[in-house]
């Protein structure tokens, strides 16, 4: 067989079906094999100089076996990753209404600033005299975060939101230990993100769920009944995951404090209130801020994030290392439990925090200014309420408005249609949208959580609303269930077999398996 005919057989073993192609490609949607399937031994996409001849100092640890990495040239690598990128939906492509994730526009100025060599090309262990500007930047960002939250201190090192939760609960544990108290229960509403109970458990706490009331808020009576001398903290998301402001939060904070416990706030939804409400004024002791949500550092397909934690006076002494302080010769890092930091609970990660994210977040904040940030929360809440109002008749709002930055619907409008929340969401994909968050929060049946963010125009919202209404109508007509079950139809891949993937996990490419498959 010729090489070219082999290549064709690798694409497709049968003549194309109607609408199909010989290659499996469909116009701009191009099939792309794995890197490992494009290997030519010895080929390389980087020209490095010949190493000078030296006597090896590796001793007995010298590698003797091949590694098995594939060889590709630069054009192949660039094309490979360009093609992969084209199989992704992104904010840059369109509305990404993933509730609780705050997928807003990521300004490119922030990328440019983070790449300045004076930030990106700095080593964390350089002498402090050579990194004064970097320490000043972190200190300036800390000042913005403290001012926006009204809190006196902030721990900058946590690497993401869940890491910030860990930081917050460890700070609380350290404070309780210092008080000589062994409180071990943490109360978490049923509507909370999964990271909340997982974090509490990771700090050695037991977790107890608090139910929601009929208004989508924490059931205050149930909460107060559970408070007691063994409760360490309440973890509450506010605005909560139903997209609602916890309107009894001040009373809740008072009750938590009266019981001797701390009040942790999950700040994932800070975008709804930034510039308009300071968490300190709500009685919060501790809150993480997802810089990759509210302050627009790009989510990058799953990170990196950054999760600074603002702290009340009572918790500040226990904040993790390192600390940045104003010293005699400018800014200084405290890296040891000594002096003012003698009660610090320890270190959470290597080095000083997510500097690359700090630069981006500060660039974003300075661009908006205090006035612009207030406009951010105003427009985010306005956009969400516009969606809630416009879809109120076609879909079923879980709770009456006004909502905050996200609009929550249940699957009542799909009742008896044979169409589930999942099917509705998958049909949206064919219409050119990333689905909303589905089946979360757990307190609402078949939840559809829509967070448009402030960076969507009215035109963009109107088109999305029109599509959602049309799809809801189609589902309600009762004759399209099978069509919904098959969606999406127009994506690089149709629905994927997740059950099969978990039953027989294939987590990497293996040469032997590929060769065996080729032989068959």
């Amino acid at each position, binding site marked *: 067989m010729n090489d070219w005919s082999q290549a064709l057989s690798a694409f497709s073993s049968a003549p194309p079906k109607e609408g199909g192609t010989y290659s499996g490609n469909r116009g701009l949607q191009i099939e792309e094999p794995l890197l490992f399937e494009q290997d030519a031994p010895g080929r390389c996409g980087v020209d490095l100089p010949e190493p000078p001849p030296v006597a090896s100092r590796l001793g007995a640890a010298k590698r003797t076996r091949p590694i098995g990495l594939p060889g590709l040239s630069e054009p192949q690598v660039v094309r490979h990753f360009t093609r992969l990128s084209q199989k992704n939906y*992104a904010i840059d492509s369109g509305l990404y209404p993933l509730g609780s994730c705050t997928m807003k526009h990521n300004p490119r100025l922030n990328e440019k600033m983070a790449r300045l060599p004076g930030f990106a090309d700095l080593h964390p262990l350089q002498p402090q005299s050579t990194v004064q500007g970097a320490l000043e930047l972190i200190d300036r960002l800390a000042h913005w975060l403290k001012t926006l939250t009204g809190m006196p201190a902030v721990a900058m090192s946590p690497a993401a939101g869940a890491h910030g939760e860990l930081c917050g609960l460890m700070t609380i544990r350290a404070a309780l230990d210092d008080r000589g108290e062994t409180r071990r229960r943490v109360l978490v509403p049923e509507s909370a993100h999964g990271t909340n109970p997982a974090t509490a458990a990771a700090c050695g706490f037991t977790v107890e769920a608090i139910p929601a009331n009929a208004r989508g808020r924490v059931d205050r009576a149930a909460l107060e009944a559970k408070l007691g001398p063994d409760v360490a903290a309440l973890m509450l998301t506010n605005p909560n995951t139903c997209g609602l402001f916890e309107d009894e939060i001040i009373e809740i904070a008072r009750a938590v404090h009266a019981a001797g416990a701390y009040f942790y706030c999950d700040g994932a939804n800070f975008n709804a209130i930034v510039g308009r409400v300071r968490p300190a004024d709500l009685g919060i002791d501790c809150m993480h801020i997802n810089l990759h949500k509210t302050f627009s550092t790009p989510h990058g397909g799953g990170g990196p994030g950054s999760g600074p934690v603002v702290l009340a006076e009572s918790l500040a002494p226990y904040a993790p290392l390192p600390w940045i302080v104003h010293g005699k010769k400018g800014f200084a890092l405290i890296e040891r439990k000594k002096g003012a930091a003698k009660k610090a609970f320890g270190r959470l990660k290597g080095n000083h925090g997510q500097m690359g994210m700090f630069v981006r977040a500060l660039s974003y904040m300075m661009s908006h200014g205090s006035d612009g940030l207030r406009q951010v929360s105003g427009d985010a809440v306005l956009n969400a309420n516009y969606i809630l109002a416009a879809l109120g008749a076609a879909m079923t709002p879980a709770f009456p408005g006004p909502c905050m930055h996200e609009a929550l619907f249940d699957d009542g409008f799909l009742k008896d249609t044979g169409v589930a929340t999942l099917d509705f969401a998958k049909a949206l994909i064919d219409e050119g949208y990333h689905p909303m968050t589905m089946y979360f929060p757990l307190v609402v049946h078949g939840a559809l959580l829509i967070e448009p963010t402030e960076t969507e125009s009215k035109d963009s919202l109107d088109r999305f609303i029109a599509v959602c209404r049309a799809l809801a109508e189609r589902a309600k007509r009762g004759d399209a269930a099978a069509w919904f079950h098959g969606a999406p139809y127009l994506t690089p891949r149709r629905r994927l077999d997740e059950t099969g993937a978990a039953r027989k996990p294939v987590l990497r490419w293996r040469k032997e398996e590929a060769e065996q498959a080729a032989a068959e």
Partner: protein
Amino acid sequence: MRYLPLTEADRRQMLAAIGAPSVESLFRDVPPSARLDAPVDLPTAMGEIEVERSLSALAAKNVSAGSVPFFIGAGVYRHHVPAAVDHLIQRGEFLTSYTPYQPEVSQGTLQMLFEFQTQVALITGMEVANASLYDGASACAEAVMMANRLTRRSKAVLSGGLHPHYREATATYARFLPFRLDAPPPAPEGAEDLMARVDADTSCVVVQNPDVFGHVRDYSELGRACQAKGALLVVVVTEAVSLGAVKSPGEMGADIVAAEGQSLGNALNFGGPHVGLFATREKYVRQMPGRLAGQTVDAEGRRGWVLTLSTREQHIRREKATSNICTNSGLCALAFTIHLALLGEAGFTRLAALNHAKAVQLAERLGRVPGVRILNASFFNEMTLRLPKPAAAIVDKLAKKRILAGVPVSRFYPDDPALADLLIVAATETNTDDDIEAFASTLEGVLR
């Protein structure tokens, strides 16, 4: 404001559609006492020109690594990143997408993660790897907790050669969870007898290769000894490029590898974001922390990828999850994958050989500086010097002469006078012969 598309006319129309008198009225559930009626006391909005001017001024106050002869490592390494890497990671479809929960519109990220997992498994010599953790230090803590779960034991032995940040991060977790650490003091010159510390309650022994002082060892014998006692061997790697020249942890019998992947594709970034690598044996995969991409087929039988085994994770298992991690280091993992794809077998092994050769040249030249002794019998691209004077002051003097010379061990262990004269120095492919000569001759002058 350039990032906000709504016009005043839009806002009026939308409020009318909602039936609300004002944006403020939408915040009626906020207790009045907590509502701010004016912007907080911070600067007001700026254009791109002003922001760029202000932040550039801050950046200019720093001495960037590329502007001087530079020999700092100790867990974070300055390597050349090919131009294609940064171009590709800035494609909006990668940069501005979320965690790939909807696989039909995330095949690009998912295939990339599958490739990343395969690359990490290959270079570490392990069976499986996850889709990344925050960084090497937190990966190390996760490795210890995973070993505790797997063995149902509660003591971990940490080598004195383990990076101090990794020791401290792991100790932080141990402070709040029911497990103990046995962490002998740093031994910059000699080998340790870690097996003497292993008892029936020991879940794992954690070693670093090359260790923080630069020594590179074959831990195969330690792996066998651990196995005999029912403890797991955890191997930490802070310099991923070393895996192109050094026998892999898998070959040495490692059960878990926790590594820092920054060296490939990622800038120094003043310490973050970086990318934690995590690999293990296939039989342990259900106790692994973090996300996993797996291969499957779609409704038409075509190969595709999904996030899988998520019943380990917090969004399903809540307080019973293997870890609380959610967002990890996706884009840094992408940079790693692109860089390693460009290098391939030939480039990765050559890059490692080049690093080693530069370090040998550095060792030879510094070894001729009067009063300087190199502690290492073996090393990859990093070594520890004993100076005739406290190293911290020498480093400061060299910095004034625009040489960034390395990390004084006293930065990690300020209270141990026996370590005060030690300096950890690294060389990479970015160092020139002139850099090495400048470092050595300036050091001679400073020591004189």
